[in-house]
């Protein structure tokens, strides 16, 4: 009976319900997209790091890996430490390529080549580059690339599930070092499972006073850029949430104002304020559930479209996992309950007669 009444009330107030529904869909989709994309950026870069080594060596006291410079002469010294399986080096940089304003450039030691799965051609030699499948589609000249006033021959095309890699250019460490004027951004160290990582990290630290050594997990968890992206995303989502709350609250206030006589009659007939409030809040919740499902579908479609926009080179992508969906659903419910509760609570504080008179 309660739900049937709620559905009839929603149908009777369909214009205002539609406005609330649209506000909710826009707000929820914004929260979904902001969170999914920022989460996507973080997971793409952390996946690169986590799949490359157990320990990461960077320059000490740098705010970003882009600014890090580690001497590759440390590599043979690290390799000698007991328990170390492999040491590799990477330079992470960015440069314009053709009409694309920014493209990720990875200068890698040869032992990292196998992580880039070849689709065409072969791994690059000096003066050559390997390009990701998504950037390859966007290139007009598929034989030669110009990076920082230098020409490179395309040696092949690779595919990676990580958007940052799939939309990037891979070259050998020496060529990248000449472009970005550094030895390496980071060193990745793979160790034997049986070995104590802490002991190895301690030994690496003692090799150079200018380096910072962290386990990959620790590095990812404390990487400043990730914290900045997460905080910014949370802040923007919070602003979207507040804007949504204000929109729903405003429309709900108008709805409640126009239905004051209805609530006055209900009160006069002896229906408790709690039950009347429940009716209105349930109207909000039902609208919220429909809006959430719609926003979820809209966001999935939008993310899929964004992922396939060539201009974004695969750098902008995101997925909505269960945790994000549950969090946004809770936020939606809080938004609809608060947005409905406040206006109806304020309205029901007055006498039924006043409500009936004001409703006319």
């Amino acid at each position, binding site marked *: 009976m309660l739900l049937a009444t709620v559905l009839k009330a929603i149908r009777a107030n369909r214009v205002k319900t539609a406005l609330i529904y649209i506000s909710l869909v826009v707000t929820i989709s914004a929260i979904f997209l902001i969170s999914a994309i920022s989460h996507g950026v973080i997971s793409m870069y952390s996946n690169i790091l986590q799949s490359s080594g157990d320990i990461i060596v960077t320059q000490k006291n740098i705010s970003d890996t882009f600014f890090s410079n580690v001497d590759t002469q440390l590599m043979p010294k690290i390799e000698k430490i007991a328990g170390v399986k492999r040491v590799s080096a990477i330079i992470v940089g960015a440069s314009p390529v053709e009409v694309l304003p920014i493209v990720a450039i990875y200068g890698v030691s040869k032992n990292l080549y196998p992580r880039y799965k070849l689709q065409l051609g072969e791994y690059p030699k000096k003066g050559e580059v390997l390009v990701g499948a998504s950037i390859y589609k966007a290139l007009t000249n598929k034989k030669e690339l110009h990076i920082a006033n230098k020409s490179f021959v395309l040696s092949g095309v690779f595919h990676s599930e990580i958007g940052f890699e799939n939309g990037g250019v891979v070259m050998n460490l020496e060529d990248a070092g000449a472009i970005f004027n550094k030895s390496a951004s980071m060193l990745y160290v793979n160790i034997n499972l049986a070995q104590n990582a802490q002991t190895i990290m301690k030994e690496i630290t003692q090799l150079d006073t200018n380096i910072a050594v962290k386990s990959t997990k620790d590095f990812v968890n404390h990487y400043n850029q990730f914290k900045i992206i997460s905080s910014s995303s949370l802040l923007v989502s919070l602003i979207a949430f507040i804007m949504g709350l204000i929109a729903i609250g405003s429309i709900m206030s108008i709805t409640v104002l126009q239905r004051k006589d*209805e609530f006055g*009659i209900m009160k006069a007939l002896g229906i408790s304020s709690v039950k009347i409030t429940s009716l209105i809040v349930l109207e909000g919740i039902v609208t919220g559930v429909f809006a959430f499902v719609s926003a979820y579908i809209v966001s999935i479609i939008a993310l899929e479209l964004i992922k396939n926009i060539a201009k974004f080179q695969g750098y902008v992508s995101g997925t909505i996992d269960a945790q994000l969906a549950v969090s946004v659903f809770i936020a939606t419910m809080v938004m609809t309950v608060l947005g409905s509760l406040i206006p109806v609570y304020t309205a029901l504080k007055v006498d039924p007669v006043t409500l009936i008179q004001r409703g006319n």
Partner: protein
Amino acid sequence: MMIEAKALTHIYGSDEVLHAVNLLVQEGEFVAIVGESGSGKTTLLSILSTLLTPTQGSVEIIGNKTKRIKKIDDFRRKNIGFIFQFHYLINYLTVYENITLAIDKENKTAVPMLLKELGIEALRERYPYEISGGQRQRVAIARALANHPKVIFADEPTGNLDSKNSNNVFALLKEMAKKNNITVVVATHDLQQAKNADTIYEMNDGHISNYN
């Protein structure tokens, strides 16, 4: 004694609309309060029926001082029926849903009989906007009777109807009240209809007096 009002005064802003009104209504009595528009009839009815709190004075209804009633919604639902001039049915609910909107479970089984007695059983699934003014007021009477109240307050129940429908609705209200031993307090400006009541009071500029 069903209702006793003592020295009721009510002020809206700076206007004193009721001046120390005293009133006694006995159980089963049909009382009419007549007066011109703005004389204070509706305010008095609202205060007597617990819908409005008086600025001063007290009301005792069915042995309860209204200011001391803790669960006022429950009290109204179980003891008081309302009929308003503009029927105030909820447009998006059917006739049956309007009648049973605030009904207690135990009274639900009697609704079909009530609809039959009021001649509106065929309107059960219609919406208020699909029926005539007279039919709407019958539905409003059914809603007022649905919880078997002890008192019904009716504010200009025929104010929006033509004379034929007015007579019918008034006669029906009186008949149902008598049959179920319900006390009725009606506010009306229609003196002819008021003459059907057991007792008539006249409101004039916030003062009440016996109608002669």
